[in-house]
């Protein structure tokens, strides 16, 4: 079901979720980001309206650089754990995850392969004295962490200890190259090793790479039914779900099926998120082919 923001009278003060305010500040802080995001939204809308959106997209392989910034042995994740993360990305973005059987019957037909593959290009490691990093991108600077490696042509993925209980964060397409990529806490990275339940199935990276390819949260980042994820085949939802919800979980009058909480772009546990939809794939592929063309 398509979601649209309610029209309100211009400039009238209104309650708005802090998440969107934060996004507005990001758009203001880096002018090219605003322009690129606007262009990308136009390109996505155009592509959605074309039959080409339904055609099987070309298989593309994205080279991944994993930057490990560690203070303890546990934070210095082993190669096997890194490989497990790449495998999870490949499985989830190809929709070959066996747990997609958890998708409720009404939405089974929406499970879609992105035709994006991930290949580990290299691992960079650096020791730090910091006990944790905030979400201010300091882990991406050469002075305090590791600078990204050729971010135009590589997906950079940082692994470190994140403060504030954050599992990971991303940068939308169109932002500064010097901070482009995703960051994942070492306790929510890959499988085995330092990964801790219930975030030990590698889905934090799946979620953050979804943002990297321009996907928004499934509830539209407002907690009052007015937000949108700009995707037509995900139901409107009032806010994030968490844990392992039971189907159906109804909000915003979206019954009988309710929120698509099992989507990778909700806030549920790793074991509960299992699909990208067809229109999410159109959105990701548009980002890949327009704003991130050198990744291919």
């Amino acid at each position: 079901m398509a979601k649209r923001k309610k029209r309100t009278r211009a400039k009238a003060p209104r309650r708005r979720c802090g998440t969107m305010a934060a996004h507005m500040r990001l758009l203001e802080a880096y002018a090219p980001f605003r322009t690129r995001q606007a262009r990308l939204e136009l390109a996505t809308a155009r592509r959605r309206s074309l039959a080409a959106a339904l055609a099987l997209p070309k298989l593309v392989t994205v080279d991944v650089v994993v930057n490990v910034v560690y203070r303890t042995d546990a934070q210095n994740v082993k190669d096997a754990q890194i490989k497990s993360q790449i495998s999870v990305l490949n499985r989830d973005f190809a929709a070959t995850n066996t747990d997609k059987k958890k998708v409720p019957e009404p939405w089974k037909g929406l499970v879609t392969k992105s035709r994006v593959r991930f290949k580990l290009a290299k691992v960079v490691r650096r020791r730090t004295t910091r006990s944790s990093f905030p979400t201010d991108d300091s882990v991406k600077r050469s002075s305090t962490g590791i600078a990204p490696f050729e971010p135009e042509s590589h997906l950079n993925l940082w692994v470190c200890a994140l403060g504030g209980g954050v599992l990971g964060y991303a940068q939308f397409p169109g932002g500064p190259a010097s901070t482009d990529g995703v960051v994942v806490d070492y306790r929510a990275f890959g499988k085995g090793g330092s990964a801790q339940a219930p975030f030990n199935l590698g889905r934090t990276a799946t979620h953050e790479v979804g943002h990297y390819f321009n996907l928004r949260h499934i509830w539209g980042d407002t907690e009052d039914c007015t937000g949108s994820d700009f995707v037509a085949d995900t139901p409107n939802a009032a806010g994030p779900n968490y844990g392992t919800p039971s189907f159906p979980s109804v909000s915003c009058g979206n019954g009988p099926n309710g929120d698509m909480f099992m989507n990778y772009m909700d806030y549920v546990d790793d074991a509960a998120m299992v699909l990208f939809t067809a229109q999410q794939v159109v959105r990701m592929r548009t980002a890949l082919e327009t704003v991130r063309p050198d990744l291919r």
Partner: protein
Amino acid sequence: MSGKRALFKTAWVHVFEEDGTEGAVYRPEGGELPRSRRPRQRLSFSPDGSARLVVAGPDDRLHEVEARWTEAEGEITVSADSGAGSVRTLHVRVRSRDCLLVRR
């Protein structure tokens, strides 16, 4: 307000697992909380009437938002500039020394 001194002593963290029909539950920072994909919003107050919200953005980063607070009839009203002329308002009640309730 009896709990006002406690109000300033700490940052308050959203423990959404305890939310109910009355509203959102905030506890003092520092307690053991389960890790969560949903970033935990934080709220802090200063005696001079300023306040600070830490909220998650759509890219899952945490961001600080400056705010002001006032008190009337036992309820604290927090007003934060949300940009583009909009204001975010929270209505907060001190339930106890270790619990704030942000009304829905």
